[in-house]
């Protein structure tokens, strides 16, 4: 058995007891007034709430998935449809990326060109 059994058995040794620190007090070096972060990218915000003074700037919404995310954020987070729309947007964004990848690849263009050329050639051949 562990030799340190019960060192934190006394409640006063437990950092999270009681659950809510009392009396409530700010952290020693916490900013008292928080200036707002400059908004350089599109940030979707919980409806009826202000943008928080600090926020993440990763992966702003884009494309069709982005439009669905914007729609999702018109519903508060206690509505199921918010989350279903976001899950849909997540799936769609993967498909968008797949299509974009295919469009970027020279193999796809050459392959597509060959298919078209073959189709045209066979049409032409049949006519004759």
């Amino acid at each position, binding site marked *: *058995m*562990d030799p*340190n*059994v*019960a*060192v*934190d*058995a006394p409640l006063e*040794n*437990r*950092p*999270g*007891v009681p*659950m*809510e*620190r*009392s009396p*409530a*007090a*700010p*952290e020693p*070096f*916490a*900013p*008292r007034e*928080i*200036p707002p*972060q*400059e908004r*350089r990218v599109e*940030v*979707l*915000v*919980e409806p009826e*709430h*202000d943008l*928080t*003074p*600090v*926020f*993440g*700037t*990763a*992966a702003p*919404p884009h494309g069709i998935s982005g439009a669905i*995310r914007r729609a999702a*954020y018109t519903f*508060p*987070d206690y509505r*199921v449809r918010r*989350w*279903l729309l*976001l*899950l849909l*947007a*997540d*799936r769609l*964004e*993967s498909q968008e*990326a797949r299509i974009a990848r295919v469009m970027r690849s020279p193999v796809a263009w050459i392959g597509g060109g060959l298919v078209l050329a073959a189709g045209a050639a066979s049409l032409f051949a049949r006519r004759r």
Partner: protein
Amino acid sequence: MLAMTYQGKRKIRVESKPEPRIEHPGDVILDVTRAAICGSDLHLFHALVPDTRLGSTFGHEFTGVVAEVGSAVETLRKGDRVVVPFNIACGACFFCERGLFASCENSNPCSTLVGGCFGYSHTTGGYDGGQAERVRVPYADVGPMKIPDDMSDEDVLFLSDILPTGYQAAEMGEIKPGETVVVFGAGPVGLFTAKSAWLLGAERVIVVDCIDYRLEWARKFAGAETVDFRAVPKKDIVGFLRKMTDGRGADVCIDAVGCEARGSKLHSALGLGLMLESGAPTAIAWAIDSVRRGGNVVLIGVYGPPFNLIPIGTAMNKGLTLRMGQANVKRYMPHLLEHIRAGRIDAKALITHRFPLEEIPDAYRLFDDKKDGVVKCVVIPPGASARAS
């Protein structure tokens, strides 16, 4: 800089990405020295968390060296070594004043569920995480803890999340002397939960999982009794646990598994296959069913919105207390640092694998597959100081 980026379900890549910059006067930028992969990252990897966008960088467990300092930062200087809690917290709002740092109101504009977290989808604020060469750390006077000179980055890395999380799980169980605690899940979080249960005075600690080598870790590292839920007669894990605990059930049951739980065909089909619930709440159901009447059930395993099918009527009739939450990491750091220093918890021992950042896709696959005896994977960015280990 190099960073891990998400490319869709089960797809990640290492890419070159623009360097993060100071976005707010309270920010610092860190050169990451160590970043761990967490069971929580697997929920993102499996596309179970809504609003996980392509191109975002995961990683909420990291240490680093301060490289740039925002104009309002008072306590940190360039060159300081720090370990950073996964919660992004302002330190002074309604919730932070009460010590509920996971619930900070000033760090997540995207939902009212939870405060900001590093690298954990837009549902927690849309921040890029630390599985990268560099990372932006907001509210730098509040979260980061300086690493003592006599300790390495790896010694304290797990103060960023899993050690406080495991400890808080056990603490929320309100363990009293003589009590029996069942921990579901022998991953890194479950192991620290079991270890903490002893410190809090449990008389018996039983860990449930289905992976042999992890159950061995539970016996050796955490000194717990173990049960392989796949090996119990008639697959009746609840009946088996009740028999082990005087027929009444354990005093405290803790879910350290989360939404990818195995063991129930129904929940796997509904939650992981059809997505009709937010992942599989199998461990929640087992915890509620195998705790004694009037007992405490703790959920530290992560579930996403909107809902799961759990036996709440059973919980109601049994008169259970349910406690749960994202860990309020900051609150536990100094206390658990002392436990590490005193040798009561060898946190670093859980690191079984180290990968260069460039190979992080392999690390995710290994950790996801639970292969090669993996407990915890740590990635090391190129140029991170050797001193960190």
